[in-house]
């Protein structure tokens, strides 16, 4: 018996496989993680258990999972509009930060006031802030032909330095003993908690609303159709007479608004003020979430839960096994590597042929 591997190009991508390969990527990542733990000198089974099972084995853990999945899901939904139309917005972290700055600024205006209207204002301000910040790379791309990848990324550094300036300087808490943080927001600027004693807050409804809305826009409207066509073939889109420039501006605005909402959700939810560390790189990790979810609104919900678990798992593994928490980022990078690699199966058929020796001769 001589096993032979034959590789053939597929004519079209089977849809079932398209949504199945992310699971292959997750399984390969878990295996790869086990190997890394083994190299680092830990019992891989035990480490993986602390990573993927312990964090969600109680109610508090599940609430934390949803808490971390919320911003990831929101940002990834926004990014899916950009990526579907071939616009590479990779500065969501900056749009999140700027949204949090604008929303946080409004919350600070009302720091000693109460009122039902305050939270909606803060949320709106955050969304607008993110939207404006995302418009910068979009406008430069449409009118000055500038690479949106580099511009959106440079703006991440700019926004973080701006936040740093504000919390150290003009917005720092006058009674805060010079800590780099602002005043606490008033209760009216805080997201309502869903359960007593758990941190999960009403921001999750924003994420779910974004999922529904994006599904509607992408699959039921003319705009969604334009976005998808431009992603598949720019030439076709031009031939069909779609207004390319307007579309670029729109997808960036949607994406920025979602990232801004995620930022405002963090500062009005678990954080309650502005300080330097408002996001553990949610904006970058959401890129992985968007791909893992196949740019599909419901796929993104699932992917945001998986990736949120890598954050939680890293924290748990650090507490119980002293495994450095950066393994979380390594896992996230690995998921994307394996996902991209498994895409090979979408475009090529790998056949294993078992031929008898005499058959081979003919």
């Amino acid at each position: 018996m001589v096993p032979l591997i034959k590789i053939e190009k597929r004519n079209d991508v089977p849809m079932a496989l398209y949504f199945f390969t992310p699971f292959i990527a997750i399984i390969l990542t878990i295996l790869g993680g086990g190997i890394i733990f083994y190299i680092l000198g830990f019992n891989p089974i035990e480490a993986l258990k602390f990573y993927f099972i312990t964090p969600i084995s109680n109610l508090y853990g599940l609430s934390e999972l949803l808490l971390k999945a919320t911003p990831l899901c929101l940002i990834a939904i926004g990014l899916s509009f950009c990526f579907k139309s071939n616009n590479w917005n990779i500065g969501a972290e900056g749009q999140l930060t700027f949204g949090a700055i604008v929303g946080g600024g409004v919350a600070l205006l009302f720091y000693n006031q109460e009122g039902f209207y305050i939270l909606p204002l803060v949320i709106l301000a955050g969304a607008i802030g993110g939207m404006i910040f995302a418009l910068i790379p979009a406008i430069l791309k449409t009118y000055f032909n500038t690479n949106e990848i580099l511009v959106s990324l440079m703006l991440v550094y700019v926004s973080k330095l701006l936040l740093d300036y504000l919390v150290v300087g003009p917005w720092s808490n006058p009674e805060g003993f010079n800590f780099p943080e602002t005043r606490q927001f008033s209760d009216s600027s805080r997201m309502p908690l869903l359960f007593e004693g758990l941190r999960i807050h009403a921001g999750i409804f924003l994420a779910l609303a974004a999922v529904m809305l994006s599904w509607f826009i992408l699959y039921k409207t003319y705009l969604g159709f334009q976005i998808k066509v431009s992603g598949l073939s720019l030439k076709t889109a031009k031939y069909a007479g779609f207004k390319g420039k307007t579309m670029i501006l729109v997808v960036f605005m949607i994406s920025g608004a979602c990232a801004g909402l995620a930022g405002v959700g963090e500062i009005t939810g678990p954080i309650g003020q502005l300080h330097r560390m408002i996001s553990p790189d949610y904006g970058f990790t959401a890129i992985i979430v968007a791909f893992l979810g196949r740019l599909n609104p419901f796929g993104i919900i699932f992917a945001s839960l998986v990736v949120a678990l890598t954050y939680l798992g890293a924290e748990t593994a650090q507490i119980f096994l002293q495994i450095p928490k950066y393994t979380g980022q390594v896992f996230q990078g690995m998921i994307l590597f394996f996902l991209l690699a498994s895409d090979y199966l979408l475009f090529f058929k790998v056949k294993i042929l078992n031929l008898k020796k005499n058959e081979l001769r003919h």
Partner: protein
Amino acid sequence: MSLDISFIGILIGSIMASSVPLILAASGELITERSGVLNLGVEGMMIIGAISGFALMVITDNLFIAIVGSMLSGVIISLIFGFLTQSLLTNHVATGLALTIFGIGLSAMLGKNFVGIPGKEFPVLFSSLRESIPFFGPILFGHSIVLYFAFALPFLTNYFLKKTKLGLVVRAVGDSPVSASNQGINVILVRYCCILYGGAMCGLAGAYLSLIYTPQWIENMTAGRGWIALALVVFATWSPIKVLIGALIFGGITILQLHMQAIGFRIPVQFLSALPYLMTIIVLVVISRDSRKIKLNTPTSLGRIFYKEK
């Protein structure tokens, strides 16, 4: 008068030193892009080079091993990118991003035990001449060997691309992979080599930071320099000599901004620190406005997947 001639000499010397990582990374990426491959993982490869160089220096106490090791680590990590994009035909942009995220995480994980360890002094060449010759001394002498290599690299790259047969092959693969392939050139192999070369240069750029420029390991110490290097390649319209000029301009802004902070300029530190990033955006806008110029100079197949039916 503090602004005397020798001070200006020292200033120019420090600008040169701060532009070295940009020259190295951008020159490496330039070759990669000239072969038609867009590797956005520069930042990730640099940070891996930085930690592996520093870790090897601490472990072996040998700077030569540290430098060579950092380049090797750049090669190894870029091999992941090469395998995915060239053999498994993945999207260049997404794979490059994954490389950066992975590299930053891996470097922080590897570097956990190296935080706070002081670095070792890196030997400099001609240090006696540096003191004895006013103005030109601090500019030309008393630098590490890596700096001299970095300043020669754009000229070597230019010569390689324009005057050698291999350089022609690289350009042919980047501009027209199909015809290059029909001429019997192994497009995938050439691209693999260019990716690995880019990885080695980015690894060296990272090691320059952690071993020579600020001899210590700090998490995320590349601080976006990899992305600025990518922008420099566009700024230079894929010409090696212009990479050198661009890197010096950015080195100049970085040093100027540090000096302004030091004299207590009445602008918040954060705004000064944001200058290099804002400058990158402004420069990109100015360069890219002329879309014909960009189109003429961009390697025609940049970022496109090449697949040959067997």
